[in-house]
């Protein structure tokens, strides 16, 4: 009776020890991998600094939920489940893969501690892991190769289709699973033929199936198969290892780091350069990202980590309306440039201006900074900070569209993008009827507990001024002692910062901060989510900032505000989450709670709501920028509301109101649908 010869003892043609191959393969594989990784790390070493070692606890939590827990994956159910299976399988099989490498040098090697029951449990698990991974690969392969979901398509301008790479990688993984199982099955079948005993394997697992299939095979065949499948696995394994850093499967290696070092502060923009304070900005030679090496190392890691899953672009409103922007290709183009400029061998190329080389100006200006892409990315890849950095670079080079130069200049001269006189900033409060009932305190002359920060559009746009009056009315009725800054208020600069005009933003921030602190108020309230975000997240040293919807929800709960039954119970209301209230600041429930406090109000939800809310078209300076697009974001949004069966779209942002009001007209739904600001709905229902 003989037993099968393992790869460590096997001799090819009876003379050449297979162990030599088992030794050379890992040495060459690991060596090559180390070399490739060193080359891949080269650009990161030259990159701009990035501070990502703070709040370790929070980072570990992200690692557990996002990386290990694959929390974002089920947002796309089929692809997500397939990925979770493959991911979990990889984690389980990693131990097996390492032991297999050693088995090539030492027959029957078992990982320390895996000798007893733990080994049995592990083997049971890994048999199923391999089986399910193979099934997942087959399903994924069929899905990618035959059904071809639209999300993965590569528009012509972005280069060739990526399907081949995806299917190839799935093939490799499948090969690993099959060869691993055959290696084991051939041994078990051999043993069965010799002893007639069935070694326990997980029922219906690959190994189980293969073992049963091989019971009739000759011993010679099984011996050959055993060795062949071993080396097939070994070669494939090291090939795969070195293949990973060459494309989108790099994420298998980088994702753990990418998630650990992820951006933790939503709603906040990175400094121009880490380690350079606002006061030192003047000393910087250059601003923003102009060339590849101006990105931070983390942003480069993002590029490496992209799995090309297309979810960002699938959620991107700019992409949806046909603007020349697809976040997926912001990353893929940069990754390809990194691969090209930092080749695996030979000299490193000198980088060119990114905005001539791989991006276009319109592409970078097309982003509304809504954050849908970042919210969706399973790997926590950032986009907004990159867009802002690229825009900082363009602004520094003077590359600003004429349509944006006008409002920027007006902001510099007058503190608002419309170029209106400062002294008219509080004119909304002068409307006769309103003034008689609700005199507004000027906090530069009087004092109060609360500052109502109005911001530019609400101060100057005739249509939107009503939001200011309603907000003041609600605050008044809720018993809040408040006032405004009047002509001392400047634009909050939320979009100025996000459009890359850093120094202008700094200027606005300083003026506002000084004016706000001089009033001595204890809290700030605003009805403009963009102002809310800037004051809360971008500014420092201010009293707490609250959005009017938070105040209303709180005052309803406390009983300070009570609401009448719904004036139009026959209408169907839907709440549209403004990006800067929802995604960037997590305020989803307060406005809904306030709406639901109106008795008899029928409220529905759109399919895309809360953190999947669809941008209305953008606020602030975005109103001045005219990108090429096939339709308007607002029109798509209005259609979504109509699909949900709503005829009143309630929003809590002046820009959303402007965009959705316009969109209703463009969509030809005037008379059928209306847009209403949160403050107006509440003010109408004040008891």
């Amino acid at each position, binding site marked *: 009776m003989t037993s099968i010869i393992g790869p460590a003892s096997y001799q090819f043609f009876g003379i050449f020890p297979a162990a030599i191959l088992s030794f050379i393969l890992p040495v060459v594989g690991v060596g090559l991998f180390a070399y490739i990784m060193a080359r891949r790390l080269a650009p990161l070493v030259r990159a701009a600094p990035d501070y990502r070692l703070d709040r370790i606890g929070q980072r570990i939590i992200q690692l557990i939920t996002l990386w290990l827990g694959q929390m974002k994956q089920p947002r796309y159910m089929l692809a997500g489940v397939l990925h979770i299976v493959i991911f979990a399988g990889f984690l389980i099989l990693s131990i097996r893969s390492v032991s297999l490498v050693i088995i090539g040098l030492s027959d029957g090697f078992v990982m320390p501690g895996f000798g007893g029951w733990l080994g049995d449990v592990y083997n049971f698990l890994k048999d199923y892991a391999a089986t399910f991974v193979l099934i997942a690969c087959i399903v994924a392969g069929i899905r990618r190769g035959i059904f071809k979901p639209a999300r993965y398509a590569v528009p012509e301008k972005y280069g060739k289709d990526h399907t081949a790479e995806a299917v190839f990688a799935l093939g490799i993984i499948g090969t690993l699973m099959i060869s691993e199982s055959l290696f084991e099955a051939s041994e078990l079948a051999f043993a069965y033929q010799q002893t007639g005993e069935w070694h326990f394997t997980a029922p219906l697992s690959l190994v189980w199936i293969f073992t049963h299939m091989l019971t009739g095979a000759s011993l010679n065949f099984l011996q050959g198969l055993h060795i062949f499948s071993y080396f097939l696995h070994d070669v494939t394994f090291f090939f795969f290892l070195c293949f990973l850093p060459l494309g989108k499967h790099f994420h298998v290696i980088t994702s753990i780091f990418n998630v650990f070092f992820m951006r933790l502060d939503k709603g906040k923009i990175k400094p121009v350069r880490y380690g350079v304070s606002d006061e030192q900005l*003047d000393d910087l030679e250059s601003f923003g990202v102009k060339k590849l090496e101006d990105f931070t190392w983390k942003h480069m890691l993002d590029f490496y980590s992209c799995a090309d899953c297309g979810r960002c672009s699938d959620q991107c409103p700019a992409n949806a309306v046909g603007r020349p922007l697809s976040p997926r290709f912001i990353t893929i183009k940069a990754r390809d440039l990194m691969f090209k400029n930092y080749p695996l061998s030979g000299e490193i190329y000198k980088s060119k201006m990114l905005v001539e080389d791989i991006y276009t100006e319109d592409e970078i200006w097309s982003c509304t900074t809504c954050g849908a892409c970042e919210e969706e990315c399973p790997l926590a890849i950032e986009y907004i900070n990159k867009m802002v950095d690229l825009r900082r670079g363009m*602004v*520094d080079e003077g590359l*600003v569209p004429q349509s944006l130069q*006008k409002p*920027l*200049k007006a902001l510099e001269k*007058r503190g608002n993008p419309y*170029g209106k006189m400062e002294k008219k900033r509080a004119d909304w409060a002068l409307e006769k009827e309103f003034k008689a009932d609700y005199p507004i305190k000027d906090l530069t002359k009087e004092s109060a507990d609360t500052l109502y920060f109005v911001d530019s559009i609400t101060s100057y746009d005739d249509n939107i001024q009503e939001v200011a009056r309603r907000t003041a009315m609600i605050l008044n009725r809720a018993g809040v002692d408040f006032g405004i800054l009047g002509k001392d208020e400047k634009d909050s600069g939320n979009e100025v910062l996000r459009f890359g005009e850093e*120094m202008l933003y700094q200027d606005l921030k300083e003026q506002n901060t000084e004016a706000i602190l001089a009033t001595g108020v204890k809290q700030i309230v605003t009805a403009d989510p963009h102002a809310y975000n800037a004051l809360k997240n971008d500014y420092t040293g201010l009293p707490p900032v609250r959005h009017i919807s938070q105040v209303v929800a709180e005052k309803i709960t406390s009983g300070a505000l009570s609401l009448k039954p719904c004036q139009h119970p026959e209408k169907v209301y839907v709440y549209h989450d403004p990006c800067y209230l929802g995604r960037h600041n997590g305020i989803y429930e307060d406005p809904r709670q306030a709406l639901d406090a109106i008795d008899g109000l029928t409220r529905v939800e759109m399919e895309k709501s809360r953190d999947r809310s669809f941008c209305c078209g953008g606020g602030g300076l975005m109103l001045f920028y005219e990108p090429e697009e096939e339709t308007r974001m607002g029109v798509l949004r209005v259609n979504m509301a109509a699909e949900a069966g709503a005829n009143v779209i309630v929003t809590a942002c002046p820009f959303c109101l402007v965009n959705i009001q316009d969109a209703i007209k463009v969509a030809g739904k005037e008379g059928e649908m209306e847009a209403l600001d949160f403050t107006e709905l509440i003010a109408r229902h004040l008891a």
Partner: protein
Amino acid sequence: MEILVCVKRVPDTAENEFELNSAGNDLDRDDLVYSVNEWDNYAVEEAIQIVDNVGGSVTVVTVGDDESEEVLRREMAMGANNGVLLSDDAFEGSDGKGIAAILKAEVAKGKYDLILTGAQADEGAGQVGGMLSAMLDYPYASLVNKIEVVNDTTIQVGREIEGGNQEMNEIQLPCVLSIQTGINEPRYVGIRGIRKVASVDVPVKGAGDLGIDPATVGKNGAKTRRVDYFVPDLGDGAEMLEGSTEEIIEKLIEKLKAKGGL
């Protein structure tokens, strides 16, 4: 190519609402914001682009008070190499010819192949470029919306003429051109750009430095002077035309004729 661009600091038409002072004879200047004349900005951008293509340098010059230095710095932040401020109490109250004479004195101090001005500025006269060219005996083209450098001594320029048509001319250097908006897309200059050139020296030259007889410029030399500002009474809100459609149309046509609409 050595290029001189003449610029002016003007009240910004986009960011101001013009009102008269309480005496009613001048603008209420308390709340006005100023910037570089829009046409001049296009001229500087054009100059920078020419120099980028064929080499040389761009100098920006203005006649004005100390505050006019800010527009020179803005244009230098755009990419102009040098700035010169021509400032003297004697220059105050100059008419177009006075300004052209002051600029002529500065042109004589240098060696410029091309002198650009904006097609017009806040006063809307569009006069300085043409006057300067006549004083220098240089050829001139106004409302230029295209410049092509042919060789060291010749350029081709397009002038914007009625109906959106373009009149092409060949001009010998040195020459003076007044630049129309839309000839290019001026680059953006932010606060940061201006701060970067804050420490660059901008020489200030007075009548003495330029060899100008103070009697020939300023108020004394001006043959044309502004007496006062006024705003014709326009009333508030629209005058609503009522009656039958025929009556309305009759009234409307009368008004359109008066306002140049027909």
